[in-house]
């Protein structure tokens, strides 16, 4: 072999060296999708460039032909590797089965074989020769039929790969636009170079520009790899994660212009990425100027709750603003993360309101209880008063009737004793009056005891006790009706006692005030209530005036009855009009608790 080194050879060797470096770089990252294919692609480029360098440097025709054939290893590899890279990089790895790779590689292998055996058939090169037309002796060839098959096939693969990459680019992965632009440059430059060569427009006659173009390709890919970290962040993953994220992501450059934003951010900010990119972020969201400016002076992240829109469409977000720093620690922009917390805040608000409602309920309930306690205290107070008045009434009764009668009897006997010294004559009937008074005293005592607590009530119950009282009054000449619906049934003890007292007191009042001896008593059940009515057709009175006019003794009876009825949760009503009779109605509910005590009577 004879050598004749040209400057173009050095250039091509540089291309080969760079490609080799990229192979090494990509191979080290072969775990990343696209890296393996890229390594293969750059291997092809490296061999193409190296082969071409040696072809150019060959001084004689056989040397040049040998290396031209060797070049074909690279030339045949590049289109397949390119398509493989495009498939891996755009997330179509699964298409790269062994079978598909074998099928894709079949035609290039035939090309390689034909190139190696060209002398036998001339399908790749129909003729070869040396030309001295240019600045160096070059291999001049006329292409054979297969070459055009190979060229079409190669272009097809390159075209498909390019299409895949461009279509991904147009799906606006803005964050990686520069990276894809690098790739686009990487693929389009060889196209242009190759086109120029094939069409015969090369500025240097007989020089194939394609490998030189691959120098630019290699640089563009290197830029993508180093500067934009092509293989560190895989656009596909970015697409699926960032695009699909519920959180909004906005990337700002150092001038706070929007560089990229994901669909969630578009939705939150109400502005499409297409319109937003390039605009100042504070133009989009003027309210956040302070926030952005605040972050200018700071290195770390800031977190803040912000809101967008007006009620009722207002949304709340948790905003994280953090610096974007390159590998050397230089700030290259800002990243805004928006996490929608509207729902959480709504729930928080609901919980807060629920809490407030609950607290109010507790307060209301407490107030109710306090009110009830106050009522109870009031009731107890009135009950004590009523009890005291009852004692006064009892004292009055004892003083007014029992003591008066006994004193009267005593006075008779004393007078008799004074006026009848021993031996004096006693007329029959002299002591009749005092005896009569003593009998009356006993009777009155019994009446009072009965009034205090009739034994009939304990032994036979309310219905019978009232009937007995009615019969007593009938015997005294009263016209009195009694209607009841209970029969033998016993009611809770406290209900029986209370209703008996009401009956007793009402009848006492009829006796004292009504100026009639006609009355009617009804003891009935209405739903869960026992109802007692004592009605007379007497002279009646003005109920509003009676409490004021009557003395304590007259008042004690009914007021004390009223308290007792209230204590059992019932009501006592007195209806009367002057001249229209009086009706006393007591209603007491048969609560579960009082009903249960109906059995109290057993064994009493």
């Amino acid at each position, binding site marked *: 072999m004879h050598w004749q080194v040209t400057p173009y050879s050095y250039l091509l060797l540089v291309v080969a060296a760079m490609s080799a470096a990229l192979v090494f770089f990509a191979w080290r990252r072969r775990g990343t999708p696209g890296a393996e294919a890229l390594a293969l692609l750059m291997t092809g480029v490296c061999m193409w460039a190296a082969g071409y360098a040696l072809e150019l440097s060959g001084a004689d025709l056989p040397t040049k032909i040998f290396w031209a054939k060797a070049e074909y290893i690279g030339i045949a590899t590049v289109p397949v590797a390119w398509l493989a890279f495009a498939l891996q990089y755009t997330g179509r790895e699964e298409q790269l089965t062994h079978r598909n790779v074998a099928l894709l590689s079949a035609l290039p292998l035939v090309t390689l074989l034909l190139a190696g055996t060209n002398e036998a058939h001339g399908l790749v090169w129909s003729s070869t020769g040396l030309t001295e037309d240019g600045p160096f002796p070059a291999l001049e060839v006329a292409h054979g039929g297969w070459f055009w098959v190979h060229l079409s096939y190669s272009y097809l693969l390159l075209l498909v790969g390019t299409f895949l990459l461009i279509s991904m680019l147009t799906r606006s992965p803005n964050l990686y636009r520069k990276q894809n632009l690098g790739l686009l440059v990487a693929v389009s430059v060889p196209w242009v170079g190759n086109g120029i060569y094939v069409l015969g427009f090369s500025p240097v006659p007989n020089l194939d520009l394609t490998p030189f173009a691959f120098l630019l390709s290699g640089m563009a890919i290197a830029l993508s790899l180093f500067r934009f970290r092509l293989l560190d962040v895989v656009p596909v993953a970015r697409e699926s994660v960032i695009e699909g994220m519920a959180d909004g992501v906005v990337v700002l450059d150092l001038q706070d212009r929007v560089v990229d934003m994901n669909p969630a951010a578009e939705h939150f900010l109400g502005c499409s990425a297409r319109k937003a990119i390039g605009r100042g972020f504070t133009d989009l969201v003027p309210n956040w100027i302070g926030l952005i400016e605040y972050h200018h002076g700071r290195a770390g992240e800031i977190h803040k709750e912000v809101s967008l829109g007006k009620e009722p469409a207002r949304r709340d977000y948790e905003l994280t603003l953090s610096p974007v720093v390159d590998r050397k620690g230089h700030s290259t922009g800002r990243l805004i993360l928006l996490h929608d917390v509207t729902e959480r805040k709504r729930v928080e608000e609901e919980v807060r309101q629920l809490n407030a409602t609950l607290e109010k309920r507790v307060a209301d309930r407490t107030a109710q209880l306090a009110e009830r306690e106050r009522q109870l205290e009031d009731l107890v107070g009135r009950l004590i008063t009523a009890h005291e008045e009852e004692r006064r009434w009892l004292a009055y009764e004892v003083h007014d009737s029992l*003591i008066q*009668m006994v*004193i009267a009897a*005593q006075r*008779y006997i*004393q007078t008799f004793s004074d*006026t009848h010294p021993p031996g004096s004559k006693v007329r029959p009937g002299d002591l009749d009056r005092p005896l009569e008074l003593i009998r009356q005293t006993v009777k009155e005592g019994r009446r009072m005891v009965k009034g205090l607590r009739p034994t009939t009530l304990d032994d036979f119950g309310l219905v019978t006790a009232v009937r007995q009282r009615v019969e007593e009054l009938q015997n005294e000449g009263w016209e009195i009706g009694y209607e009841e619906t209970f029969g033998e049934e016993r009611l809770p003890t406290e209900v029986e006692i209370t209703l008996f007292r009401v009956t007793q007191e009402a009848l006492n009042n009829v006796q004292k005030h009504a100026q009639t001896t006609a009355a009617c008593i009804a003891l009935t059940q209405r739903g869960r209530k026992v109802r007692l009515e004592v009605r007379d057709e007497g002279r009646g009175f003005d109920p509003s005036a009676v409490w004021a006019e009557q003395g304590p003794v007259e008042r004690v009876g009914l007021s004390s009855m009223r308290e007792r009825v209230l204590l059992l949760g019932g009501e006592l009503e007195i209806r009367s009009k002057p001249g229209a009779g009086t009706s006393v109605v007591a209603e007491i509910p048969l609560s579960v608790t009082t009903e249960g005590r109906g059995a109290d009577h057993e064994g009493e």
Partner: protein
Amino acid sequence: MRGNEAVPPARLLIVDDHALMRETTQVMLEGEPDLEVVGEAVNGRHALDLCRQLRPDVVLMDVRMPEMDGLTATRAIKKEMPTIRVLLVSAYESEDYRREAASAGATDYILKDAERHQLLEAVHAALGQRGEG
């Protein structure tokens, strides 16, 4: 003074809201020739009216009565007719009542269950003071 035909019997007014008390007071005073019951009143107001009409020498006045009680009536009587003697007759043994009775101008305060002779002595003692007021 007793037994002196020329001297007319002393005039007594009985005041009590209880008929039994009025009845038995009469019984106790029966057979006393120098004492004459000229009227019975059922309360203080009634007593005051009868005092004006009948001008009794001694009033036997119950303490607790409806409408006007004995102490009020006593004050009124003593103010209007100072010569009338008032004996308060009560069922209640109480120093407070005694003091009240004295300050109202009552001659004495005796109990309803007092012995007959105690009542008569009190009446006569009151009569002995007649004209001295």
